[in-house]
């Protein structure tokens, strides 16, 4: 195959990837988009297999089969509630794969047409080491993010003295290593870059806690793209550069949307430590306030007599796996002629769009699921807000209390509806460690208990 032919096929593949993302602008076009993505990938792989230098089909075929079988098995088995950790795990694979490709290019540059061992061009060396650096950070950062999301590692932010100074020094050290690597092309230094970058990846994610995870997962998504880009530059491969840039841009935009959803700069999220220390101080002054408690029958009665109900789900719904019971409750209410809708805060859950997927899984029609800006002005006209597993994203303090750590965060105005039903396991504070004054309002009824059990009980009472 001629070089031009290869370039054209790679271009085709890149275009298909762009269409794959474009398809996601609407649920109806999204499945076709996914197919475009698959076709683009198949074209890219087949084109590469046609290279004259590629001869060991058996080994490559076996490698694809093994990897494909593992990937298929995992993807078919995974529970939708476990999506965030799955995505984190996948990001780590992209990162480490980038490291392996860079290592292969370093040991056998001739296969990639970038010179010979010991005499690789300077720009290739720089690109190679940057690709390695980003790949290794993505790898370890994603592994730690996976651990935190899975619960194997504590989700609490871990902060220690001079954290940022240490990270900055390590970064400087990596830059020095890269300079040395470019000068002497030593394998020892190459692997030192890998190891030190892996350490830095861990340190970068350590101080970031639970609810900031959507930002971290998006950021690692972005890194995995930039890593692919770095490899693309090393191999002078436009397909890798384009795809890497698409993924990098996508992750960066998601990170931006997520941090905006919390009214915090990406920098402050990255620096981490949010919500760790304030936890103790905020609760004290509310201890004597009265909380109105209710049970499933009360909730069922209130909702049955309403005209409109807005359901506000949060991470707690995912933890309790309450989405199916919730949907059943919604169905019954709809049959009673009640207008039932779902309001999703941008940072609800542990990854962008997490709640939407869970509700879709439970067969909630996507037309009933609305974003913050679409539904927020409807709360004053709504009779019942049903908050399930969300907390901070409904806290009116974000609008009124300048001293609050969540001040300025856009919230769902549930307090403006006539009645707020708030499912919660206990009076504990939300992730931010801030007490929610909503609990003490006259129009709020607290429903204490497990989210799933509560929905099931409400369904029973409604029947």
């Amino acid at each position, binding site marked *: 195959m001629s070089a031009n032919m290869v370039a054209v096929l790679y271009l085709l593949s890149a275009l298909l990837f762009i269409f794959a993302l474009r398809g996601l602008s609407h*649920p109806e076009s999204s499945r076709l988009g*996914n197919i475009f*993505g698959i076709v683009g990938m198949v074209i890219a792989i087949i084109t590469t297999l046609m290279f004259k230098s*590629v001869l060991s089909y058996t080994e490559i075929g076996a490698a694809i089969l093994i990897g494909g079988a593992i990937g298929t098995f995992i993807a078919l088995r995974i529970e939708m509630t476990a999506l965030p950790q799955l995505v984190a795990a996948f990001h780590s694979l992209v990162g480490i794969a980038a490291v392996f490709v860079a290592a292969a*290019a370093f040991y*056998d540059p001739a296969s990639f047409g970038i010179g010979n061992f010991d005499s690789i061009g300077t*720009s290739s060396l720089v690109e190679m080491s940057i690709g390695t650096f980003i790949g290794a950070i993505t790898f370890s950062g994603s592994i730690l993010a996976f651990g935190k999301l899975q619960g194997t590692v504590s989700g609490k932010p871990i902060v220690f003295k001079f954290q940022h100074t240490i990270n900055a020094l390590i970064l400087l050290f990596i830059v020095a290593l890269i300079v040395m690597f470019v000068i002497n092309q030593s394998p020892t230094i190459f692997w030192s870059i890998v190891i030190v970058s892996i350490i830095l990846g861990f340190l970068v994610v350590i101080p970031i806690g639970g609810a900031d995870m959507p930002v971290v997962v998006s950021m690692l998504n972005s890194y995995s793209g930039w890593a692919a880009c770095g490899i693309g530059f090393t*191999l002078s491969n436009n397909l890798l550069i384009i795809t890497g840039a698409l993924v990098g841009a996508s992750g960066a935009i998601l990170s931006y949307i997520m941090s905006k959803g919390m009214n915090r700069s990406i920098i402050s999220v990255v620096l981490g430590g949010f919500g760790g220390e304030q936890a103790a101080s905020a609760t004290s002054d509310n201890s004597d306030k009265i909380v109105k408690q209710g049970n499933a029958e009360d909730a069922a009665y209130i909702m049955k007599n309403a005209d409109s109900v807005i359901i506000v789900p949060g991470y707690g719904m995912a933890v309790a796996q309450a989405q199916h019971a919730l949907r059943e409750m919604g169905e019954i209410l709809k049959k009673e002629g009640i207008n039932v809708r779902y309001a999703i805060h941008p940072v609800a859950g542990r990854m962008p*769009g997490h709640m939407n*997927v869970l509700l879709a899984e439970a067969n909630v029609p996507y037309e009933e699921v609305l974003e913050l800006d679409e539904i927020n002005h409807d709360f004053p006209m709504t009779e019942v807000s049903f908050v399930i597993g969300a907390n901070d994203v409904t806290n009116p303090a974000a609008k009124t209390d300048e001293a609050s750590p969540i001040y300025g965060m856009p919230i769902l105005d549930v307090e403006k509806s006539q009645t707020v039903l708030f499912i919660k396991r206990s009076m504990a504070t939300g992730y931010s460690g801030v007490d929610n004054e909503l609990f003490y309002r006259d129009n709020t009824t607290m429903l204490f208990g497990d989210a799933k059990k509560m929905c099931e009980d409400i369904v029973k009472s409604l029947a």
Partner: protein
Amino acid sequence: MEAHSSEVFVIGLTVFFLACIIGYYVVWSVTPALHSPLMGVTNAISSVIIVGAILAAGPIGHDISKFFGIIGVVLASINIFGGFIVTYRMLSMFKKKPKKEKKD
């Protein structure tokens, strides 16, 4: 042959910035409800680095670079299959539900 001349780099840089701009506009057009599938798909396509891994694994022989290439192919394949399949699973949940009465 200086295959990696500055000219090649500048072409790469041009492609890179144009792709970033395309990415910017395309990703903003993605509906927020599909942000999770977006991560699934981007995860799958970023594994296009399998192209580099295949080139490394390509030559006959048993050197270290080929070994790295094979590992790279396995890892990237996990992602490609896993990423596209999990995205498919997510997207099939977003199918329009026929407006029928649920039997309870």
